[in-house]
């Protein structure tokens, strides 16, 4: 069982897939953006000069779809100003200079027995901890876990497919902490008041599949949690495609997974949910993959939110060559950034450095109608026609080709032999159609 279309980009995971986690040093200065999630930015609740603790609330949730932001280091607030972030060229950041001593979050002896906690208390801890989707979308998790009563949920899907090339952080999490991840799944099941979860993992991660299967048997959870080994095909990890592969159901056009009773959580998010519930630990650090052929020491690292890329590079030994592109996330869906000083945020699962050789600088050419984008599109669109319409400013033709069903996976641009930036064109089609409504 699989989904329509899809592509097979070079995986490039060998650079880091066997690199065990290591902790990066605490940065001297943290730049913590208030906007790290979909929704309204958090409101700063500290002032310049305040001395704060590790994990202290510095930005409070502002509205239903928003999220708390916590300090990654103990220290002093030296500035509240605007700095480049991954989501905006200039975003409000609380700048904290590290000093003082570290509290002891995440120590096993502090673990609480979550079994006795009520659903509302569990949700509350997740909300307080400022957990958002760590796969990249950064949608507030507590909101996702409280679907409206009109949408009954029956299935939890843990997204361990990690179909993005280069990125290996979820793979390493599943191999290193399989028991913790299962615990996170059980907590989430309790919150959703259901008893069936699937873990979808691409077949190119046999280590993760074996580790989780072994733990499921060891914990006697075979009837509750099922590991599904999925075809290695991009975008296997896209929500709608993952649901199709696992449940053989299609999320209605322009609908959400909850419309067919599914909730999807990413592996890193589940891991953070467990820490938030067991230790009341706010989301102030996360595991990321730092990779690229020009990185001297690529690997999977634990970093504090707000650490700048320049600090990470200095800690891991730098690059062998000037980068032409720096990408937050993977090469298919990640965001390219224009400054080495952009800080890591909650939704950052990796940092990828590409050299000039690896970056396509050719100008694009006319469409030769080869149809590869049509065959590759997992949404069943005709990207080439959309691209041609946008290129010719014919936005009147765009609607017929349903640009809003695009999931922005980039498969069409990847396969195009004319190097046309098709998913970019579709994004333009969406923006123009919206503004003209």
């Amino acid at each position: 069982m699989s989904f329509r279309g899809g592509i097979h980009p070079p995986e490039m995971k060998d650079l880091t897939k066997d690199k065990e986690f290591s902790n990066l040093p605490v940065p001297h200065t943290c730049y913590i953006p208030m906007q790290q999630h979909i929704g309204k930015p958090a409101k700063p609740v500290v002032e310049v000069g305040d001395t704060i603790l590790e994990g202290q609330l510095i930005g409070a949730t502002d509205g239903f779809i928003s999220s708390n932001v916590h300090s990654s280091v103990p220290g002093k607030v030296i500035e509240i100003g605007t700095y480049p972030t991954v989501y905006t060229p200039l975003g409000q950041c609380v700048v904290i200079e590290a000093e003082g001593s570290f509290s002891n979050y995440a120590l096993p002896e502090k673990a609480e027995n979550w079994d006795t906690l009520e659903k509302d208390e569990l949700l509350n801890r997740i909300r307080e901890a400022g957990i958002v989707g760590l796969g990249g979308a950064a949608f507030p998790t507590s909101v996702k876990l409280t679907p409206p009563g009109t949408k009954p949920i029956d299935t939890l899907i843990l997204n361990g497919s990690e179909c993005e090339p280069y990125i290996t952080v979820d793979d390493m999490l599943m191999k290193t902490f399989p028991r913790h991840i299962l615990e996170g799944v059980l907590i989430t099941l309790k919150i959703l008041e259901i008893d069936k979860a699937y873990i979808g993992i691409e077949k190119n991660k046999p280590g993760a599949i074996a580790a989780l299967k072994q733990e499921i048997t060891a914990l006697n959870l075979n009837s509750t949690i099922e590991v599904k080994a999925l075809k290695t095909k991009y975008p296997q990890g896209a929500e709608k495609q993952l649901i199709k592969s696992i449940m053989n159901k299609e999320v209605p056009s322009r609908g959400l997974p909850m419309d067919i009773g599914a909730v999807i959580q990413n592996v890193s998010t589940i891991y953070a949910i467990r820490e938030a519930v067991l230790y009341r630990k706010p989301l102030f650090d996360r595991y990321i993959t730092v990779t690229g052929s020009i990185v001297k020491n690529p690997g999977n690292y634990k970093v504090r939110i707000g650490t700048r890329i320049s600090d990470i590079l200095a800690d891991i030994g730098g690059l062998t060559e000037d980068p032409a592109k720096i990408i937050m996330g993977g090469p298919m869906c990640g965001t390219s950034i224009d400054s080495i000083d952009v800080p890591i945020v909650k939704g950052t699962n990796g940092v990828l450095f590409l050299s000039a050789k690896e970056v396509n600088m050719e100008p694009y050419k006319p469409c030769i109608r080869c149809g590869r984008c049509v065959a590759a599109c997992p949404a069943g669109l005709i990207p080439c026609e959309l691209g041609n319409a946008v290129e010719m400013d014919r936005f009147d033709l765009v609607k017929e080709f349903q640009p809003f069903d695009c999931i922005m996976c980039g498969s069409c641009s990847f396969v195009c032999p004319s190097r046309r930036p098709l998913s970019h064109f579709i994004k333009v089609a969406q923006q123009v159609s919206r503004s003209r409504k």
Partner: protein
Amino acid sequence: MTFIYIFPGSIGMDKEKTNPDITKEEKSAEDIALILSNPPHIKGGQTIKSIMWLVVLALVPATVNSILIYGLKAAIVILTAVISAVLAELVYQLIMKKPIAVGDGSAALTGLLLAMNIPPDAPFWVAGIGSIFSVIIVKQLFGGLGYNIFNPALAGRAFLMASWPVYMTTKWHRFTDTNVLSEGVANIGRIPQNAFDAITSATPLGALREAPKILSDLSASPQSLYDLIFSPHMYKTLLWGNIGGCIGETSALLLLLGALFLFYKRIITWHIPLSFIGTVAAFMLFYYSVKDVPGSNFINYFTLKMSLFHVLSGGIILGAFFMATDMVTSPVTHRGMIIFGIGCGLITSVIRIWGGYPEGVSYSILLMNAVVPLIDRYTKPRVFGTSLID
């Protein structure tokens, strides 16, 4: 669609080591450009250029074989066609001040495909004029690569057929030693020299069309024609190509070898070739089942052999794998490609049996080229998450 931002460099790397020319003072002043663009940030391996040149490569075995069979004159026709096509494109792009894109190989491929559709004994300048027409009129005046409606090589061939029909339909190679047709016809018995020439100098499809009339004029049994067509020697000849026909269409086996290579490289898919060839095979199977010919019955050995003969002779293999699959002039969806292939197969069969020419591959593809926009409109894939009904 790429935007380049420059910002002062502080890159966390040891510059002096990688570039000893930079002193400390210069380093701080140096700028590093980072490229910004929407994702994705990586691209697949194939480009227009690689696709076009790989198709040319796939045609090399069949081309070399044709030169070996037909000799130097075929080589001259091929070279003339290719060089004229490339020069025509270059001159047009220079005059119109367009970006020079001759290196992408599409003009060279058009020239080569046109040459493969020209009889080997045709004068070389015919090929040159055809190439220029293909590139300038059929491709560039419609907007260049990607915008042409008709397959340039086939439209060029149609132009030559209209302008120099004698060169395009009679200049088949005259084999000095024997080939399968001369042997077979000699076996039939006493035949006047002009009738013998009329049959043996033609293509297999031409012989199939003309021979019954000639044979009945001589009151010879029509059975002898089918004996000839069904001889093992005939099938061997069709596979290897030692027979009359256009330059490129003679050896079915070497064309299939090139097609396999294109499948392996994922440049073509099965949809167009299989539906095209399958339609012709099925059509012929039923046609000869119904037709009153000695030995035929409803789908028996006879009709199967006639069907195979039709598939292997003429331009079907070349047309189905190398011409109908032209990306620009075929549908973009797989369902559309199948409809396109079936249409090509039907028109080819109708022309072969009832039309004015013995062969109809090129016209069938050109006619189907014209309806591609219509096919595309009605074969849109189902959008994910929408019901199958709408």
